[in-house]
């Protein structure tokens, strides 16, 4: 087991290296000297940058040195001091901007994942058990449509309905009066009352694909002989399903659990912007509007690292839950 873990971690290192090079290239993409560019952008949006600040920035980013040295400086700062550079739009280090928003990102990711599973797993199992029934056809059709509709489209439509039919204005996590206040019971209640819709909308994004995976996995398992054996020994249909095939069919969902955070950083980002949530995605968007590339590079690096770590975790969890993987016995695993 330990050997497996070490081997798995070692495989992630070249991956992270590639991602870091890519992130650095993105930082360097906009033409011209990055500091001058940033100052121009900032002045265009009404923020003034003093000469002293500009000179300090130039020195900090080592603009007089060759590219590879600057890359090493950048990656070195990340590894040693967790310093991803400075975000001009937020007037804060990139790491502070993203980490400051991690709490909400985590909370929303977790709740929307729970929502996805609570909805998708039973539906997927139902569709598999009643394959080719009317219900199955309807579910298949709806999931097909669901896969074609990006979550932010759905959000626009639901926000429209909520506003015109129920007079609820969706967006943000707090009502204006709680926005700047410190934490209190009132604020928590306010948060909960505002959070359910973003959670449902974000969760919906994963529902269609989870149903499809669940249905396919269940169909595979239901065909196997142990299911027939379980039936033959007299278990009720429900018991058969809950005891054996379901446990195997949720394996991809377990590995999906670990992909949740990267997904929220990636797929949910437009939805978060539309819903104006205080998570990390909209912060990236705001800084991209003024070509704040250190924020972009830092974000990609953080997500890349998160994805790599998630992949390691999910592989380990899978190896623990499924001994066949540990011993390399499963094809294509």
């Amino acid at each position, binding site marked *: 087991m330990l050997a497996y873990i070490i081997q798995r971690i070692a495989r992630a290192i*070249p*991956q992270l290296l*590639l*991602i870091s090079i*890519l992130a650095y290239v*993105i930082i360097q*993409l*906009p*033409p011209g000297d990055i500091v001058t560019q940033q100052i121009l952008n900032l002045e265009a949006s009404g923020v003034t940058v003093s000469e002293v600040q500009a000179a300090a920035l130039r020195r900090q980013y080592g603009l007089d040195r060759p590219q590879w040295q600057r890359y090493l400086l950048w990656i070195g700062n990340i590894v040693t001091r967790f310093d991803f550079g400075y975000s001009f739009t937020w007037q804060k280090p990139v790491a502070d901007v993203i980490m400051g928003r991690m709490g909400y990102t985590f909370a929303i990711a977790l709740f929307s994942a729970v929502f996805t599973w609570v909805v998708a797993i039973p539906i997927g199992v139902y569709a598999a058990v009643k394959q080719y029934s009317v219900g199955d056809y309807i579910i298949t059709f709806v999931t*097909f*449509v669901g*896969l*074609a*509709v*990006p979550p*932010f*489209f759905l959000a*626009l*439509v639901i*926000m*429209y309905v909520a*506003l*015109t039919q129920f007079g609820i*204005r*969706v*967006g943000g996590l707090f009502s204006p009066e709680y926005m700047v206040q410190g934490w209190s019971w009132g604020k928590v209640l306010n948060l909960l009352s505002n959070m359910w819709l973003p959670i449902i909308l974000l969760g919906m994004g994963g529902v269609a694909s989870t149903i499809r995976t669940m249905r396919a996995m269940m169909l595979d398992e239901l065909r196997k002989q142990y299911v027939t054996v379980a039936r033959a020994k007299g278990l009720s249909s429900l018991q058969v399903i809950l005891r054996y095939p379901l446990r195997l069919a949720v394996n991809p969902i377990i590995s999906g659990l670990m992909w949740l955070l*990267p997904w929220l*950083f*990636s*797929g949910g*980002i*437009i939805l978060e*912007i*539309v819903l104006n949530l205080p998570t990390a*995605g909209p912060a*990236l*968007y705001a800084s*991209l*509007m003024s*070509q704040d*590339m250190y924020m*972009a*590079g830092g*974000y*990609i690096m953080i*997500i*890349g690292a998160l*994805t*790599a770590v998630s*992949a390691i975790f999910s592989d380990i969890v899978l190896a623990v839950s499924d001994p066949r993987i540990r011993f390399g016995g499963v094809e294509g695993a």
Partner: protein
Amino acid sequence: MSILSGLRSWFGRRRGAKVDPVREEEFYRAGQWQLVWWKFKRHKLAQISMVVLAILYTVAIFAEFISPHDPLRRFRDYLSHPPTSIHIRDANGRFRRPFIYGMAMGRDPVTFRPVYEEDRSTIYPIGIFVRGDPYKFWGLWESDLHLFGTGPEGMPLFVMGTDTIGRDVFSRICHGGRISLSVGLVGIAISFFLGLFLGGVSGFFGGVIDEAIQRVIEVITTLPTIPLWMALAAALPREWPQLRIYFYTTLILSILGWTGLARTVRGRLLSMREEDFVLAARLDGESEWAIIVRYMLPGFASYIIVSLTLSLPGMILGETSLSFLGIGLNPPTISWGVMLQQAQDIMNVAHYPWILWPVPVVVLAVLMFNFMGDGLRDAADPYIT
């Protein structure tokens, strides 16, 4: 199919034999593409999708003619006009050909939003092949002929309403299709070359090259698509002409899109390298290049088509998302995503929901591509029945 075998199969059907030897023979003699087509024809949903997509692309190609108005013209008297209701029965209860009533714009005294009232005194019949806004078709021929409308003097017809600055939504959807539907095609053309080349190299040579390319693919597939697209798109200089931005946007969309195709090509090449006919060709003294192009490529061409069809929707959605956020294409370019920029303010959507029209259109296009890809995937391997 030759005339002879066509006749034979016709007679075969007439005899009504249960196992039809002629048809069976036809099945064995049919070429690969013939079989693929037969199998695809059995997939009704995929066929319908193909027709719908053909219609969408036709509308995009002949956008100037099909749209009743100039997509950039602002009707200052008809800001945020709701979709015009088309009548076939006039005030006296008589049926006549479709017509619309004149509309008068007023302002809501409290909110100052435009409100419209039907003026039932005059009617404007809708005609086909009417004169309207002049245009230059494909930038080549000047004309002012439109498929339908109310003519130059009539009350303008807004099938899907107008946006907040008075432009006709339907005309913009027709023209927007040009960008939104072609982004995918240009994008897959780029992905196609990247995927075919890198997948081919990887699968054919194997060894260290294969290992390196596979690692790169692994990293790219784990990368977060949308933030990366956003970061790359945001890095494009704002002052560039829109055509250049368009080209670079498609390039950005396809940078991440080629991996699926490369994997497919590699997998097929690996399995095919061991086939007898490849060995036979090699013994015949064919060059490696000829073996790939003449013998192996036809074998997985159908898989390539499937992989490309299935990667198109992602690119269409990518362009729409980026333009919606304002970091892809921007006005005055018209695309479905650019049109949705007005929907960023939810109050606009609440009062003028018809500005959401691009949403169902994008969903329709994506859904049709998914269905068609699904049908093609089933048909791609005609030897498995």
